[in-house]
């Protein structure tokens, strides 16, 4: 470690991670050093996954209680913060009910596919300066490609449970995710045009003089709204929660799941929401980059006092809060209306928006 004060680490993790890397490489062969690093990062992600998942479940319950004039969980721990931990323990001890005539291999595989996809996307997200597992040069492309794989888990779950409700739920979810992937991708591509790069670290660095939502003004804002809408659909959350519409299909694709396997799906939904919000905050709101305004040096200095990962978490949770508000205020759309919204409105708007953005960048009319 350098002579810098210890709290400097919160502003830049690069020296810290570098020193660990160097330490490992000096004591073992490069292969084992990388393997050890991967194991460490994997364990950290597991912990992060569990903590974020549990917190989001708790927070969702509190937000919906706030909207619905209720108190929400308030018995276990102060303000009920350990409620989700208690729920988790309950789910761990619950019986895994075997389903008659279900395709047991695929049935058991489905929740893991969803979870693995979540992990793969989490690896590419920059959480803070230097807190970035893999920095691909095709970061956004990777994120879009991998996150669309989660539909396989959902389809498998619906298909293999051999239940009619599950099958309808899975088919709905398939139709929905495949359509909304387009908008999601196009909204991100709009921003890639502005950024000029697909590498997430470069995108974040490019927002040092101002977040993209301000830099790209009108088209960026349109892309942001489309991204939030299609991101909500992507995560199967209300008002797009057709795949698990409980008033129509009881629980949709995970009707037949019980115990921990159900919990995986449940947790995956929340982590998916976290991922969508993370990408939105990275691409549109600067990720871990503090709020900077062009050449206002003093203002930028003051903003830099808040550590980057606090900025990152703040922005991400703000977007999650927006998505939660959407869910708890709107009724559910019908499947044909959902597809109409995508194919007749969002997609054309998006295509025009990409053109506008390209023109804007070409003419240099952005900030």
């Amino acid at each position, binding site marked *: 470690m350098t002579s810098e004060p210890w709290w400097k680490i919160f502003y830049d993790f690069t020296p810290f991670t570098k020193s660990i890397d160097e330490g490992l490489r000096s004591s073992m062969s490069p292969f084992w050093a990388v393997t050890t690093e991967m194991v460490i990062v994997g364990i950290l992600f597991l912990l992060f996954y569990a903590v974020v998942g549990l917190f989001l479940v708790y927070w969702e319950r509190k937000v*919906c209680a706030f*909207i*619905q*004039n*209720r108190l929400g969980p308030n018995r276990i721990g102060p303000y009920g913060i350990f409620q989700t931990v208690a729920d988790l323990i309950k789910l761990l001890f619950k019986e895994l009910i075997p389903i008659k*005539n*279900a*395709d*047991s291999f695929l049935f058991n595989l489905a929740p893991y596919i969803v979870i693995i996809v979540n992990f793969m996307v989490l690896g590419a997200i920059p959480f803070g300066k230097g807190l970035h597992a893999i920095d691909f040069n095709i970061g956004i492309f990777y994120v879009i490609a991998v996150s669309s794989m989660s539909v396989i888990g959902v389809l498998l779950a619906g*298909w*293999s449970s*051999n239940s*009619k*409700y599950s099958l*309808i739920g899975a088919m*709905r979810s398939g139709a929905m995710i495949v359509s909304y992937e387009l908008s999601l991708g196009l909204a991100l591509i709009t921003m890639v045009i502005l950024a000029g790069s697909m590498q997430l670290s470069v995108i974040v660095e490019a927002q040092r003089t101002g977040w993209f939502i301000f830099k790209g003004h009108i088209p960026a804002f349109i892309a942001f709204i489309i991204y939030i809408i299609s991101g909500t659909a992507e995560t199967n959350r*209300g*008002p797009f*929660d*057709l795949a698990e*519409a*409980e*008033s*129509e299909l*009881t629980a949709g694709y995970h009707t037949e799941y019980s115990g921990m396997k159900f919990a995986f799906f449940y947790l995956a939904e929340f982590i998916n929401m976290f991922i969508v919000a993370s990408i939105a905050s990275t691409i549109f709101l600067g990720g871990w980059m503090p709020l900077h305004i062009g050449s206002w040096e003093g203002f930028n200095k003051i903003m830099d006092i808040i550590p980057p990962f606090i900025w990152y978490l703040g922005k991400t949770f703000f977007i999650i809060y927006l998505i939660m508000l959407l869910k*708890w*205020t*709107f*009724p*559910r*759309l*019908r*499947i*044909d*209306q959902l597809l109409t919204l995508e194919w007749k409105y969002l997609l054309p708007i998006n295509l025009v928006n990409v053109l506008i953005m390209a023109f804007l960048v070409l003419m240099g009319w952005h900030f």
Partner: protein
Amino acid sequence: MEEQVLNTAINEDEPYLINMGPQHPSTHGVLRLVVSLKGETVKNVVPHIGYIHRGIEKMCESLTYPQIIHLTDRMDYLSAHINNEAVCLNVEKALEIEIPERVKVIRTIMAELTRIQSHQLFWASYGMDLGGQTCYFYGLRDREKVLDIFEETTGGRMIVSYSCPGGLMYDIHPNFQKRVNDFIKYFRSILWEYDAILTGNVIFRERTIGIGKLSLEDAVSYGVTGPSGRASGFSCDIRKHDPYSAYDRVKFNEVLFTEGDTYHRYLARIEEMKESMNIIEQLIDNIPEGPYTVKMKPVLKLPEGEYFQKVETARGELDVFIVSDGNKYPFRMKFRSPNFVNLGVLNHISKEFKIADLVAIAGSLDFVIPDIDR
């Protein structure tokens, strides 16, 4: 094992049957709908009833008239007081008892409060059927206030059993008038929230307008009454056409629409809540003084004959038909419950709509399953 999974693959010609219920979140009870689907489109709906059949009509044949009152609570539990009133009015008509004015007015107020709380629960659960869970808590928040008034006066919150042949079980609580006035003031001031959350919502309007259209002819021929029938333009309000209790002395509008779709069935109920508040306001401040019940004989024996009374519950026309052989028990008792008749139209109006619309349509007919099965 893989084979069995593959065998369930959909055959083009065969209907894809799914069982909605008897345990299903959107059937509001133990109604079972066997739905034939083609993709997401509903081709046929066959309701299977009887999961909560308790034989109330048969039980009535071995109970005295004051005892029957308590069974009628358990039919349409959301219109409990109106059911009580129907039997009471019929027995009083048979015995030719003159009922004090005070009783008539209090019964009317209680009936309208019952209607309001029933429609509040409809609003709450309808929002939930369409996936907006917040409505449920808003609806129940206001419904609690009505139930508190019931509890104070009658001792029961939902199953009130307040009327009895000859009058009321007990007089109103001294706070009754004040609390009802407070409630109406409160509810008028908060009704805009209902519109803000659901009525004006784009998704809600998209989901309901033009869905499940019921024409006037079909409403009449299927006998769909109550707000569901009036949304199609079927003028069937018993309170207007055949006034009982104190309805002949109050001014109110019969809520009528002509569209007959899901949205207007919903709107009819919202408007009815406002009309109910108008009725209560006209009566609450001048409840006549007098006895709350007339002295009745300890054993009520209806003279031989057939007696008929109809009332307007929150869901439509409830008819009570008594055949008496001069005994203290009825010889035969028949209820024409509005929900049973309204259920008949479900298949007719939900064909060719999506499965999500089936939930919306069934919700807008506002079924109470114990009333269907009795």
